[in-house]
């Protein structure tokens, strides 16, 4: 049996086996069906390829060479169909696909006429090699056109995606290149180029690889394949050595060695597969976690929306009552109503803070930088909070810098929130005296200083207050409304600007100073 008959036989048996294997795994799936069709075309081509080579007369060689082309005609269109299904483009390209099948059927009709395969002549290594008729040339154009187009689609999708599908495409593309180029060497003799199709045997490689790709993608790992090749090669070498050994004892020893190495090789392959399976499970778990994380953020957005709706109503109506939209309100009721309004504002702030924290923790907090004067922001915060200080009978001093500070690149809303938090805290934790705000340029940075004559902080508290859900002893003592989220958010906002925030205090009842430092950018 010649080398070419053997390669044809391997291709035929291989494509029938893998085609059936994939198809029977899930006969309803489009991907499996189209792969089965593709394998069927390869099987028809390669089976008749063997029969044609063992033909003894010119007539039978001509008949079987036309029969083998019947399979070859459908290889490009079924390959394209399979790739379109694999890339989920088959609906989009439905018309094109139907036209391609019609074209292939036209070639099939022409196949059994001299217009497609003219005759058979002797060529190097072959007694009867087919020669092209006039319609063979456009078929060849279609053949390479569809295959190259399929590769283009694979390549284009590969650029857009990541993960397992990307790896699958890499291997399909790589093995298709080898397989098709190997199979294409058959066309050289048709045009009198004296090169026999030595690479015909490569066809089965891509059938095998695609089978791997669409059935067990985790097995479709180069490490497993290399391990398998190594084990098979070593076992084969050991077996040949054992069979060729001169004495019976050496033969027995050799075979025992083969047995031992087979067990070792088997467990080696299994351990590699296990490791890859584990990795695949981890990847899946990670993807699941990412999905859950997204769902959590979405839930928080929706939940906060739901919480805010009644809060908006309470805030709106209370403000309208206090603004006398419904007429004068008795003085006795004014204070309780104001208290309800303040409590509602606390709830509003809590919802905002929780939402901010969730975004910070999941890395979804965005900053929009723009050039702004820090002094202007501080002034607007002081304006907003001065009534609060007046009500508590404490002073609120804003000592503007003598030389105006330069504009810096900041997210205005976030930096305003930080400054508001610092000054608001200074007022809330001070019973007597007041708070002073300063701002200056130092070592190429802008430093905001908020000092107060309030309750002060103990050393261990200073380390704790910028962490989530801690408030320090003073907080527990005087101000029980904060959930301890404000300073944590302030620290995160400062860090997002490559700045820093910290506190200093001489100790209990000695006041404290909070600093915010931002780079000049």
């Amino acid at each position, binding site marked *: 049996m010649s080398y070419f008959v053997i390669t044809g036989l391997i291709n035929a048996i291989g494509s029938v086996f893998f085609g059936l294997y994939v198809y029977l795994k899930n006969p309803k799936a489009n991907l499996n069906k189209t792969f089965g069709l593709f394998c069927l075309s390869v099987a028809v081509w390669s089976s008749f390829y063997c029969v044609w080579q063992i033909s003894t007369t010119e007539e039978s060689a001509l008949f079987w060479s036309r029969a083998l082309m019947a399979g070859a005609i459908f290889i490009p269109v079924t390959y394209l169909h399979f790739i379109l299904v694999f890339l989920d483009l088959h609906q989009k390209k439905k018309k094109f696909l139907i036209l391609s099948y019609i074209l292939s059927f036209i070639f099939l009709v022409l196949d059994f006429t001299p217009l497609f395969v003219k005759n058979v002549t002797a060529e190097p290594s072959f007694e009867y090699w087919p020669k092209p008729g006039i319609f063979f040339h456009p078929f060849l154009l279609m053949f390479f056109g569809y295959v190259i187009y399929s590769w283009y689609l694979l390549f284009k999708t590969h650029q857009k995606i990541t993960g397992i599908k990307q790896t699958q495409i890499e291997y399909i593309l790589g093995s298709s290149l080898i397989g098709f180029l190997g199979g294409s060497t058959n066309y050289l003799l048709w045009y009198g180029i004296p090169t026999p199709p030595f690479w015909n045997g490569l066809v089965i490689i891509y059938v095998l690889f695609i089978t791997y790709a669409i059935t067990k993608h985790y097995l479709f790992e180069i490490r497993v394949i290399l391990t398998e090749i190594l084990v098979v090669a070593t076992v084969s070498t050991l077996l040949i050595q054992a069979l060729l050994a001169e004495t019976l004892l050496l033969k027995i020893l050799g075979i025992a060695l083969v047995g031992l190495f087979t067990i070792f090789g088997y467990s080696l392959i299994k351990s590699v597969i296990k490791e890859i399976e584990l990795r695949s499970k981890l990847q899946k778990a990670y993807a699941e976690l990412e999905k859950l994380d997204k769902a959590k953020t979405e839930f928080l*957005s*929706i939940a*906060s*929306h739901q919480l*805010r*709706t009644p*809060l*908006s*109503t309470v*805030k*709106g*109506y209370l*403000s*309208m009552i206090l*603004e006398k*939209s419904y007429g004068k309100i008795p003085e006795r009721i004014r204070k309780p109503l104001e208290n309800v309004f303040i409590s509602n504002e606390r709830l*509003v702030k809590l*919802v*905002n803070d929780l*939402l901010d924290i969730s*975004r910070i923790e999941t890395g*979804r907090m*965005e900053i929009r930088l723009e050039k702004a004067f820090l002094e202007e922001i501080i002034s607007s915060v002081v304006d907003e909070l001065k009534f609060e200080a007046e009500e508590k009978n404490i002073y609120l001093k804003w000592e503007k810098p003598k030389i105006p500070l330069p504009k810096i690149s900041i997210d205005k809303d976030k930096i305003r929130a930080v400054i508001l938090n610092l000054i608001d805290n200074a007022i809330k934790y001070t019973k007597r005296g007041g708070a002073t705000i300063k701002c200056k340029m130092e070592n190429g940075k802008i430093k905001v200083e908020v000092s107060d004559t309030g309750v002060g902080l103990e050393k261990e508290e200073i380390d704790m207050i910028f962490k989530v859900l801690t408030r320090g002893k003073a907080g527990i003592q005087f101000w029980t409304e904060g959930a301890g989220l404000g300073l944590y958010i302030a620290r995160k906002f400062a860090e997002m600007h490559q700045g820093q925030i910290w506190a200093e205090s001489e100790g209990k009842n000695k006041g404290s100073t909070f600093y915010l430092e931002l780079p000049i950018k």
Partner: protein
Amino acid sequence: MKKKILLIEDEKVLVEMYNEKFSEAGYEIISAFEAREGLKLAKKEKPDLIILDILLPREDGIFFLKEQKKDPEIASIPVVALSNYDNPEAKREALDLGVKDYLIKTDFTPQEIIEKVKEYLS
């Protein structure tokens, strides 16, 4: 002449509240509960300003903005998003679609919203 404001908001209590406040402040206010209804009303009434909620039943506020942009009759009417849906993507999309501002309801009293509206209408 009274300035006309179209409020697209699905929360009935809030519609009632804003209605009251805006009428008190001297505006004519008309309201819609859904995006499509809002589009129809905008075409019919040609308001001076639209106040738009983002999370609405069926089509959302983003849908409203996209459709509004397509219709030359109402495309130039200024829109202010007023929603409690504080989602950065929705906010960015709304701003890209040309809303004057994206206000969070709980951050503003009705009076403060009126001050904002005065700014946008001036």
